[in-house]
Structure formats: C-alpha cells, structure tokens
C-alpha cells in the first residue's frame, strides 16, 4: 500500500454518500469516517439514494462567529453577612484556643517598640488587631459574641483598625516627632465609574465579570458577531470579528478554539418574501470566549456599522438583550 493513496481515499470518503447522521458537520464526519489502524475496514453500504435526489430543501443557515469578550473580576467579592459573622466568630474562637502571644520573642525590653506595645495591649487587650477589644484569657472571655449593630465584623472596620494601629506604631517609634506618618489606605472598592454608572468604563464593578455588548445599526444589542467567510475557521472568524467591530486597541486572549455556546434564529417572513416564496436563511451564532487583558473597545474604525458599546455584568445583560438571545447565552456566562 503506497502512501499516495491516502489522500485519494480521503477524497473518496468525502464523496461517498454519508452513512452517518446528516446533522453532523463535515469535519466531524471525517473524524467518524476515519478508521483506526487496528480495526477492519467498514463494509460500504450500497445506498441507492443519491444526494441530488433529496427532495426536501432544508432551510439553510448562515454560520456566524460571535465573541464573548469579558473582563475578569479584578478584586475579591463582597462577603455575605453570614460569612462576615462566621469568620469573626472563628477568629475569636481561635484566640481562645491558641497559645498566648509570646511578646519576648518579638519585642526587646526597653525599646520604643516595647513601650508602644505595652500601651497598645492596655487598650486593645489582645495581640490580634482585627477582633475588637477582647481578651481570650480573661474571666469574661465567654462574652465573645458581637452585639447587634457592632461594626467589628465588617472588613472595612478591620482594615481601618489595622491601618490606624500601624500609624500609631509608626508615630510612636519614629525619631522625627514633628512629622506625622501616613499609612496608605487600600483603594476603595467603589470607583468613580461605579458612582457615575459609566457603562463604557472598565473600572466599573471591579468584583464582577464584565462583558462587551455592541449595538448594531438597527439598534439592537448583541455580542460582536459576523458571518464566517469561506475558508475561515471559527476562531479566525472570531478574531476578525473582534478586530473589525471593537478595534485592535485591545490586548485580548481567545480561550481555546471551541465555541462555548450558540444561538440560532430564523428571520420573520416579510410580505415580499411571501410573494416570491423564497425563504430567507436563518442564522446560527457560535460564541467563542475571549479574555480582556488591557486596552479599551473603540468603535470609531469599525466596519460593521456598530453604533455603541457597553461593558455589562451578567444581570445587566438581560435588560439589553432579546429574551430568546439571553436565555441561550446566559448559561455560558460566569456567575461572578
């Protein structure tokens, strides 16, 4: 058997009337038709029906490549009230069960740090700085539960306590008493874009995944998508779509070569179409996943006639998208 016959056999297998379900695409049929070297060649069924004799004209679909471009969460999520209470309870429980803090390892006697420590422990009553005033070795250590309205379990309160503690330590131990030390606070979780609800900004909703939505020239919102051209793979078509719709001023990464979801729709038949009896083809959109690294969408150079874009979280998508469209895509989006 010469190797040259391999290609010819593949062509023959393509020309052969398919014995497999016609719902399977051509590349997959090739996969199915390929036989492993160990197995015997399948007996070719002699089918009298030819492809041309198929009378039922199936509605053709235009295959579209869509891009689900997302900006992943930048910061951690907000804790649930239960989680805050539970974590705080566990911290105080740990304080009760752990061995007491060994001061003599960390503070040398007579140093400014030692003096500062003595003052702090008087008012704080414990080595931990984020559990409020609580001494686990006291006679009233049983009183470890927070009362109603207490702020100690809030992360913001704990951060503030840590920063103030660091500031007072820095001020008490520094040589220069004239200057007041400032410890930088962490940046706020709510940004300017959140306050203005700027849906074009990537700084909005930092703890959520944001998805790029574009508005077509007809005025409806969608993920960027366009028909796959001949000789183009789905991935290449998706990359081209993204470049043509939202510009190249973005550092993006396509996750894999497979679509993560799909949506299909048939256009409504208009009156003119009824007269000519020509069925307009429907569309199937296959969505590829892509991650945003840097940059921003830019519609000024788009060749698809797009009017507007928005970066939206999952719940906000439902307001803008068609109901059918949203129900088809919602399960491929991350919860957070």
């Amino acid at each position, binding site marked *: 058997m010469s190797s040259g016959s391999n290609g010819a056999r593949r062509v023959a297998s393509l020309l052969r009337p398919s014995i497999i379900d016609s*719902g399977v695409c051509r590349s997959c049929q090739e*996969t199915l038709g390929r036989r492993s070297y*160990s197995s015997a060649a399948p007996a070719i069924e002699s089918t009298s029906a030819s492809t041309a004799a198929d009378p039922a004209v199936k509605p053709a679909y235009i295959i579209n490549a869509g891009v689900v471009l997302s900006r992943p969460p930048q910061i951690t999520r907000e804790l*649930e009230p239960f989680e805050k209470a539970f*974590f705080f309870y*566990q*911290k105080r*429980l740990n304080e009760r069960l752990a061995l007491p803090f060994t001061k003599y390892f960390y503070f040398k006697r007579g140093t400014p740090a030692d003096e500062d420590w003595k003052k702090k422990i008087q008012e704080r009553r414990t080595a931990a700085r984020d559990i409020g005033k609580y001494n686990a070795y006291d006679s009233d250590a049983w009183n470890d539960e927070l009362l109603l309205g207490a702020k100690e379990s809030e992360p913001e309160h704990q951060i503030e306590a840590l920063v103030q503690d660091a500031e007072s330590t820095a001020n008490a131990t520094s040589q220069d008493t004239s200057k007041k030390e400032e410890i930088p606070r962490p940046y706020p979780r709510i940004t300017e874009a959140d306050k203005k609800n700027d849906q074009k900004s990537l700084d909005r909703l930092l703890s959520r995944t944001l998805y790029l939505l574009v508005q077509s020239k007809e005025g409806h919102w969608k993920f960027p998508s366009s028909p796959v051209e001949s000789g183009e793979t789905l991935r290449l078509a998706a990359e081209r779509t993204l470049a043509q719709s939202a510009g190249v001023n973005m550092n993006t990464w396509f996750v894999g070569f497979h679509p993560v979801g799909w949506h299909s729709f048939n256009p409504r038949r208009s009156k003119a179409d009824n007269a000519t009896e020509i069925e307009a083809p429907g569309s199937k959109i296959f969505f590829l996943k892509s991650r945003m690294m840097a940059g921003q969408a830019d519609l000024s150079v788009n060749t698809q006639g797009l009017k507007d874009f928005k970066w939206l979280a999952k719940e906000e998508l439902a307001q803008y998208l068609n109901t059918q469209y949203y129900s088809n895509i919602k399960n491929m989006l991350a919860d957070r």
Partner: protein
Amino acid sequence: MAAREPSRYLARALPRTSVPSIRPQGFLSRRNVSDEAPARRLSDHLTELESASSLSTTVPESAAASFDPLARAAARKNQLPRGRYQFRSPKYNRGPLHPHQPPPPSHPSSRLFVPGPFSAPRAEQTFDSTVSPDIMTLCYVHTPPGFKPPPKSARLREWDDSSPYHKNRVLRGPRGGDVLRLLRKPIKFNNIPEIERITIHSYVKNAAAERNSSWLHVAGIAVQAISNVRVETFKSKSNVAPWGIAAGRDSVAVKAELYGENMHHFFGKLVDVVLPRIKDWEGVKGSSGDSSGNITFGLIPENVALFPELEINYDMYPPKMIPGCHITLHTTAKTDKDARLLLSAMGIPFYGKIVN
C-alpha cells in the same frame, strides 16, 4: 359452633378496609393536608420564606440597647454551675461503651478542633471565577454524535503463552518501564484540576554541624512563619560525611503541609509578592514534575527572605540562617501537562523545554 361465630376469624382474614370499624367513617368530612395542596400556589409557599437574612433583621432600639450580657452576669446572685456550661472532652478514648464520649472533631469543645476558616482567600476566588471555566473551555474535546472512542489496549499486558511457565504468571507492566501512569479522564465540569495541597520542605545541611541545633530551629520557625502551619522534622536517611550527618541520628529537615485556606493564602503570597521580586528568575523549569500532576521548584534563602512575614522582622532571625526550601504544588491533575496549564493560569511561569 364455628359457623355461628365467624366474626373473629373473619376479621383477621379479611383485608383491613372491609373490617367494620368502631369509629364512624366520615369520608366526606375528612380533611387531609394533601387535599388542600393544589389550592395553594407556589407563590404562597414562597411568601412563608423570609426574604431577608436573619442577620439583617431590625430589632427595636430599646431591646438592643438594654441588652448587656456582662452586666446581666454580674447581677446574677447565684453563679451558674461551672461543669454544666463548660463541657470537657475526655482526655483518653475509653472505647465506644464508655459513658463519657468525646464530641466530634468539628465541635469547639473537642480536643481535636481546629478553628477556621477565617477568610475567603483571593487565589481561591480567582480560581473559581476565572481559571476553572477557562480550563474547562481549553480542555474541551469535541466528540460528534455517534463517535465511539477507539478501544484502548489493556494497561497490564498479557503474556503471549509462548512458554508453559506463562500460566498463572502476574501480568506484565506497561511498555517502556514498570511505572503504571495515572489514568487521565477527559476534563469535564466535575474534574477540573485544582491545587490540592502545597508542601514546603527544607533540608538544612548545617543541622548537624558543630552540634548546633539553632539551624534547624531557625528553619522550622521560618517555614512556620511563611506557611502558618506547624512543621514536622525529619531525621536523615543517609550518611553525609562532609556535613557530619549520620543516618537515623540527626534531624536535618523540616516540612509543612498546607491545605485549604492556608494553602491559598500561601499561594497568593508566592505568586503576587515573592516570585515577581526575585531577580533574574526565569520561572519554574519546564521539565519539573513527577508526571502525575505535582510540580516542584526550589527557592534559595534570599528568595525565602522575601516573604512578607520574614521581611517584617528580618532582624529577629539570626544572620545567614534563613533556609532555602523546596515547594511542591500538588494538584488533582493526572498529568504534568494539565498541572502546568492550571499553574500557569494561576500565575506561575514556566521556562525551558516543557516535558510532559
């Protein structure tokens, strides 16, 4: 006689429904719970559920302000009996029949109880929200309907029966070596590889030198500081004459095993703080790994000192005694390729020839 009194035997023999009952049977007036069920809609049930969390319930100001547990305890004339409120777990396990049984380890009064978790680590949240869906997408393999995977040959090979001595002989190992690799199943939503545990191991070659145990103490304290886990020490298994180490005599190594919250915090610090600050560090060697999804790399003492816990009081550690260490990232991936995919997504760079 028997024909005259059939009732007792008949009543036993007949099914229950036909036996005359003493109670009047008001079929029409009986009300069952199930009769009413269809009349109630789903929304009626939902209204019974509390819409808000009990933690955010509003309580009248006066009730909240007047509640002071400390004052209440002080005002109590007779103190509560101590033993009733402070349960002590038995020190020894005296068997299942003893009346004094220890509580389960998850109970705070158990001697085995370990408190926690104390936070929701960032590395874990990143994995859940971003990395795991991406890995699932990347590892997707399309199998068209009607696809049958080619039959796999047996992992352990049969003998070819060319010799009579092959009868009842144990099966042969795989080709190319005796090691039976882990089975890799297709990655689906329920077996996305994740970090299982992290091992920090440090071999201190000076541990036996000049009969000075401080090297091992410092190594243990340093590893404890960066990992938040008690270390285990190990004795040498081999003699190393130049370092004066004798097998079975000298404790030479410390190890910490990190799970769960500790592991995620350590991984976050490693990826976000320590590794980016190492000078001229190319990454983890691409050939690292035990071919079953566990990747190891080493840090020299200067790199270990970059951990924030050591940096904050660097002066407290004796000079030059901070140890280097080997860090093993154990993942649930079955192959090194999958493990590298996970770790590089989580922020660990790999360099050089990638060996899978």
